[in-house]
């Protein structure tokens, strides 16, 4: 039997719909998610099935959306809040970082805040500086939040279902450029734990840790270099950045002896620094044959011009050049 293929956006919709059918306390709110179907069409058709109470169009009020999700979550529901672009989370960052993330700890463990903030991230759509960022490191820096960023339709569905069932606030960063990409997703029920990374490609010469839309890009380069130069590159996708599956990365680096981290987010203060520190703090350090490298977005806002935009973040060319620098 051939495996079913659906898009990343379809997988996200399926995850939400399945969880809303399963659990009446789950509901969904955000800007233009109802009849419009969301800015990226992720929720098309959901209002027809679940109605306007559970698929709830909001005013353009990001602080109130995130804060109301926190309040609803603390009082017995499981909200999924869509923020139209992840860049807009900044408008509600106090409600996310100061309220939702901290309620449990500062109330002495007497609160649970089971909410998901879903938001599209990343550049490549010509939307310029305020609609194109990759801010995952911001959220990883706030204890109490979990941070997830899937790279395939299969992962998107299983991780989102797990995120909705999780008793913590989860920031679920979707990849705009992957929404229309198809991949195998089985019909049946499954979840992916929010603590397990995935080896997307096995190899023995070099470990590349990467996530989001950089995963397919790195995989393409790895295939090319395997064909052209017989390089064996292992690609590790943490999938969940907080909490990080550090052991998976450490074990891979012990095996390959070389490591590189690739992310779209700007380099300075980026999550690559954290991953590299994790490698260097571990026994993997003694297996390293070369300095650990990071390839990340330039320290610039995302520009509008298509060529400038493309070159503001890692490209197949820069990924290949960095691999060759390490392996040649």
């Amino acid at each position, binding site marked *: 039997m051939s495996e079913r293929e659906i898009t990343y956006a379809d997988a996200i919709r399926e995850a939400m719909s399945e969880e809303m059918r399963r659990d009446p306390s789950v*509901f969904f709110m955000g800007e233009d998610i109802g009849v419009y179907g969301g800015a990226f069409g992720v929720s098309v058709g959901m209002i027809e099935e679940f109605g306007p*109470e*559970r698929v*709830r169009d*909001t*005013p353009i*009020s990001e*602080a*109130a959306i*995130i*804060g*109301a*999700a*926190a*309040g*609803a*979550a*603390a*009082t*017995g*529901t499981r*909200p999924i809040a869509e923020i139209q672009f992840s860049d807009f989370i900044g408008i509600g960052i*106090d*409600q996310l970082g*100061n*309220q939702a993330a901290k*309620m*449990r*700890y*500062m*109330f*002495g*463990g*007497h*609160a*649970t*805040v*089971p909410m998901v903030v879903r938001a599209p991230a990343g550049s490549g759509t010509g939307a310029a500086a305020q609609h194109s960022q990759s801010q995952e490191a911001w959220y990883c820096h706030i*204890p*109490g939040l*979990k941070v997830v960023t899937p790279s395939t339709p299969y992962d998107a569905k299983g991780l989102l279902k797990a995120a909705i069932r*999780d*008793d*913590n606030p989860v920031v679920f960063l979707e990849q705009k450029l992957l929404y229309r990409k198809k991949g195998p997703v089985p019909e049946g029920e499954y979840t992916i734990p929010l603590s397990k990374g995935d080896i997307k490609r096995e190899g023995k010469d070099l470990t590349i840790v990467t996530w989001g839309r950089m995963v397919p890009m790195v995989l393409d380069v790895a295939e090319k270099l395997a064909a052209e130069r017989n390089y064996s590159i292992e690609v590790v996708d943490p999938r969940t950045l907080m*909490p990080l599956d550090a052991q998976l990365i450490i074990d891979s680096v012990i095996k390959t002896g070389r490591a590189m981290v690739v992310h779209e987010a700007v380099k300075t203060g980026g999550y690559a620094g954290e991953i590299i520190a994790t490698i260097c703090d571990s026994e993997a350090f003694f297996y390293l044959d070369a300095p650990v490298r990071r390839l990340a977005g330039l320290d610039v806002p995302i520009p509008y011009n298509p060529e400038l935009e493309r070159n503001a973040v890692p490209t197949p060319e820069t990924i290949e050049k960095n691999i060759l620098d390490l392996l040649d």
Partner: protein
Amino acid sequence: MTKEKRAGKPDLSVDKLQDMYIKMLYTRKFEEKVAYFFSRGMVHGTTHLCIGQEASAIGAIAALEEGDWMAATHRGHGHTIGKGLDLKPMMAELLGKSTGFCRGKGGSMHIADITKGHLGANGIVGGGIPIATGAGLSVKLRGEEKAVLCFFGDGAINQGTFHESLNMASVWNLPVIYLCENNQYGMSMSQKRATNVDDLSLRAHSYGIPGVRIDGNDIFTVYETVKTAREHVLKQGPYLIIAETYRFMGHSKSDANKYRTKDEINQWKEKDPIPRMRRYLEERKIFSAAELDAIEQKATADIEEAVEYARTSPDPVPEDLINDVYAG
């Protein structure tokens, strides 16, 4: 001893009147004790006292029903006592003890007990308004006949969260009573300098909801207004109340009062809500002077008992430091 019901506007039983009066006394005496602890360096950090504002906290919560929710502010000791939370874990929290409501991790600014409908004091001005709104959404989604009382101050009324939340609650018809305790100042900034609208209840017009301005130092006026508001919100959506009041103490533990005059403070002290209620109860012979003295002695004794409990409670253990960042 059975007493006849008090003649007058609110139809309150003698027990209810006694409960309201003693909760105002608890609040005053709790805070006087806290102020003493701070002056002697016996507790660290900071605290915000509501001495002078007890009527708005106690009167408003007295009008709630079992199962209603309440969101407090950084000046929240009266809110917590009003909601009927035990004085002992409250004082223990102030002293940072493991028996405190937050196991010593929250302190004065984060006292909460979700199980008793207390959504938390809040360290962020206006931070609790979206959370209360979300609690209202949660109640509405479950189809419960419950209301949410959301406290905030005049400082919060100029925050974006106020606007976003009241608008959202209005379009969604949420059962939330928004109660602004206008104590006339932020830290030092007069409300009159912070907004050109003298009557803050006019803000309600922006959201198409009722808004009233009341004497917040008259516990009966506060009670009656919130009672009316509660009936309204269950059927017709949110309600804004501006309770005019005044804090006799500084903003936080240290305050030189440079921004206001002694005359002004003294004028407001004439309207102190506690002697006002006492006069009312005595003049109408609901309680004799001796009975009122006995209530006051009980309040003092209960606070002393809470202090003793807190003092003799254990500190948190080092392992508690890393507990409860995440649920599960």
